[in-house]
């Protein structure tokens, strides 16, 4: 199973969910497949699940999908306990485990069988996350992802994938534009105002 095939399947299922991607292949591949305005491309290794948790807590009626990686999750393992502690039902945490630091040159992570064979699904379960799925076939991935989008989370999907990266077009937005597009999308679709700024005293009308 390849990450790109999973993301291709996910793209047929995602509608108004917010999608947060790990820096690396998940970001560029989802940028090529999914809606642009609801997609945040994280730049800090390890932090995508934390950002997704913050979004899920701020918007409890909105489903938030995180596409994470094994190297990233290993860097921020405490996120599993923190997510389990708050139990946001609207958070779907998918980890594509290819056993390597793909974006950093392909060095193996400790999830690789030839290293420690660290079991991220078992770690999520042990952290207290109730809905944990471990999948290695595309049909299994799709089934678990469809179920997760229905709620009842937090859901953790551990997807074993081959260490291959799809060739996709370069990403066209920088971090600040990415942020504003996401905020405007949330404002538009939630009917809320996020970026309200007071009028400077020098420009305020006299009453």
């Amino acid at each position, binding site marked *: 199973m390849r990450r790109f095939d999973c993301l291709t399947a996910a793209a047929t299922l995602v509608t108004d969910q917010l999608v947060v991607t790990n820096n690396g292949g998940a970001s560029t591949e989802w940028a090529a497949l999914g809606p642009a305005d609801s997609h945040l491309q*994280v*730049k800090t290794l390890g*932090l995508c699940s934390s950002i997704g948790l*913050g*979004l899920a807590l701020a918007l409890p009626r909105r489903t938030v999908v995180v596409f994470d990686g094994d190297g990233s999750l290993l860097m921020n393992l405490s996120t599993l306990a*923190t997510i389990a502690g708050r139990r946001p039902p609207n958070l779907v945490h998918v980890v594509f485990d290819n056993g390597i630091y793909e974006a950093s040159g392909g060095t193996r992570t400790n999830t690789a069988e030839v290293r420690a064979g660290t079991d991220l699904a078992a770690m999520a379960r042990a952290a207290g996350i109730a809905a944990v799925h471990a999948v290695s076939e595309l049909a299994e991935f799709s089934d678990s992802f469809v179920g997760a989008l229905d709620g009842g989370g937090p859901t953790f999907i551990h997807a074993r994938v081959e260490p291959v990266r799809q060739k996709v077009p370069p990403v066209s937005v920088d971090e600040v534009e990415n*942020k504003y597009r996401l*905020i405007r999308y949330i404002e538009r679709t939630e009917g*809320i105002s996020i970026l309200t*700024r007071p009028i400077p005293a020098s420009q305020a009308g006299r009453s």
Partner: protein
Amino acid sequence: MGETGDPSDAELIRDGILAAGVTHVASLPDINLVELIDLLEHDERVVHVPLAREEEGIGIAAGTFLGGGMPAVLMQNAGLLNACNALTTTALQFEIPMLLLVWYAGHLGDTAFMRLGEVTEPVLRALGIRSFVPADAAAARSLIPQATTLSRQAMRPVAVLLTKAALRRSAG
């Protein structure tokens, strides 16, 4: 409330956090922050997120802001150092406001972690994050909303450093 019926220092700071419009507080305890964290945990006006490492808190705060909330991260300055990469490559790189409420270990009145005290403000300056040290809890009460407004206007984190002078009187 304190012994005299006046609010405790932690209550004053909690009032500042609420007056600032903060909706979500992620925290990791320092012994000096326990009363404040307990107040926030039991206050229905804010969502409290207990952390296991402070760098997570910067991510949670970023997501909170993007989702329309106003975030604060409450931690010791050791945790601020743990959070430096997330502050740089998430909060600063994406230009996301958040209030950093930091127990200032190694400052006057504290008896541990002197090295932490020495590096805290230089590290914040190097990151380009403005910081303020209120003289006492009453000053913190009025400074926290102002610092939060500054953060929103500047679209970057702002730090309020809490010393023993600002968190001296506990609940009676």
